[in-house]
């Protein structure tokens, strides 16, 4: 493989196309072209500069990961955070443990809490109807020890379900922000910039 500026730029552009917007991609490519130009002016060869910069594949992965994390930070959505996590996984195999496992555990925890909230929010009204039917004297719906108490408790269950759903939303927001910070820190540690911006 030829280790010259054109090849470096070609690989970098090729890896980042489709992820970055055209103008962003052009900016990044021009930065690296400028780096090569300045290097060559100081008497360094293309190969030296290539080795100094590192693999264009690795650079593209880092840029892509950082771009997707920033995108997830600015536009909060499940899809964006998912893509950011996937991109971060590409930076190193150990991120399977340090990123993917915590991410899956968090998603599962939030889903379980959400399902619990939905279950309460659905069971509550059903239990309320059962209380009314029990008060009307229907033995088939007699699930409550005391149907009047059942009326109040079913209202409590319903509101508890709604609160759990709302709480889960805020919990997801909290972990989303924390996750973004963690991913940025993770990318910073891997790329050696520590404070990745």
């Amino acid at each position, binding site marked *: 493989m030829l280790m010259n500026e054109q090849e470096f730029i070609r690989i970098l552009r090729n890896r980042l196309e489709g992820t970055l917007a055209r103008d962003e991609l052009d900016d990044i490519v021009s930065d690296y072209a400028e780096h090569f130009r300045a290097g060559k002016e100081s008497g360094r060869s293309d190969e030296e500069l290539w080795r100094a910069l590192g693999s264009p594949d690795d650079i593209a992965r880092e840029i892509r990961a950082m771009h997707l994390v920033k995108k997830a930070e600015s536009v909060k959505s499940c899809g964006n955070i998912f893509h950011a996590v996937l991109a971060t996984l590409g930076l190193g195999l150990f991120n399977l443990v340090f990123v993917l496992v915590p991410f899956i555990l968090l998603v599962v925890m939030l889903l379980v809490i959400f399902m619990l909230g939905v279950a309460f929010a659905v069971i509550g009204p059903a239990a309320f109807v059962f209380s009314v039917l029990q008060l009307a004297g229907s033995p088939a719906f*007699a699930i409550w020890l005391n149907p009047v*108490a059942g009326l109040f408790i079913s209202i409590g269950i319903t509101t508890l379900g709604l609160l759990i759903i709302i709480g889960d939303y805020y919990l997801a*927001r909290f972990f989303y922000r924390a996750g973004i910070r963690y991913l940025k820190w993770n990318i910073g540690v891997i790329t050696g910039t520590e404070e990745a911006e």
Partner: protein
Amino acid sequence: MKENKPCDDRFACFVQKLNFSGLTGTKIIFWLAAIMIASFVIGFGILAVTDGLSGTSPGKSTPFRHGSMLSPNITAIPLDGAAAGRIGITMGAGELSLSEGAPAGTLAEVTVFSRAPEWQPEYSQSLNGTIKALAITDPGHRGKEWFSVDSPNRWDIRVTDQVPVELSVALGAGDSTLDLNGLTLKRLSVSNGAGETTIDLGRYSKSPFTADIHNGIGDLTIRIPRTSSTRISVHQGVGDIDAKGLVQHDEYYSTNSYNPSLPANEILINQGVGDISIETV
């Protein structure tokens, strides 16, 4: 012109869009929390006051009727060697189911689908010569059903098919299903204030009997064997009569095999409001 700010807190923005006269997301959360706490306090408070939590299985404190439908209260009344039985059932309100199938050596087996003491019937039994008498009586609940534990009332009674029985059923309000096919009836009396009554004698083949059925408000269904010698006298207030397969003479409906000179099943029906369906099987 109103500024379009990007909405970060979607729940707060959702509430804002709903435009509930000044309610914000935070206020809604506080209101929900307040309603939840108040509801639980009142609900469990009622249970505590009515002894609902301690009145069930020891060690378990839930507002639900754990296991009461699965492990009902069963009482067996011994036959004590009697040659005949007389059973009187008085139920205020609820659901009554009666059929054959009492265990050997018993006159009746009563299953009450409630373990609450206040919903258990009172049993009175005596042996008079060769007749074992049993009275199963609902003690009544003095209008406290709404705040009572385990308020629904359901009895499932199995009666012996070993000896002839006189059966008297009085139900204030509710549905009753009497499957009497396997019994040996001497006399049957059924009185239901309000509710649906089903009496199944469609496969009855034992000795002839007399029956007196009073139904206040509600539909009555009675099944009799097509080949039996049966005559039914019907007095009805408001409602339709469906008596296919029977021969009608005035208020009397008879099976084709009815012969007044031979012992026959005599059934008297007094119906207030409701349809009567007499089915021949």
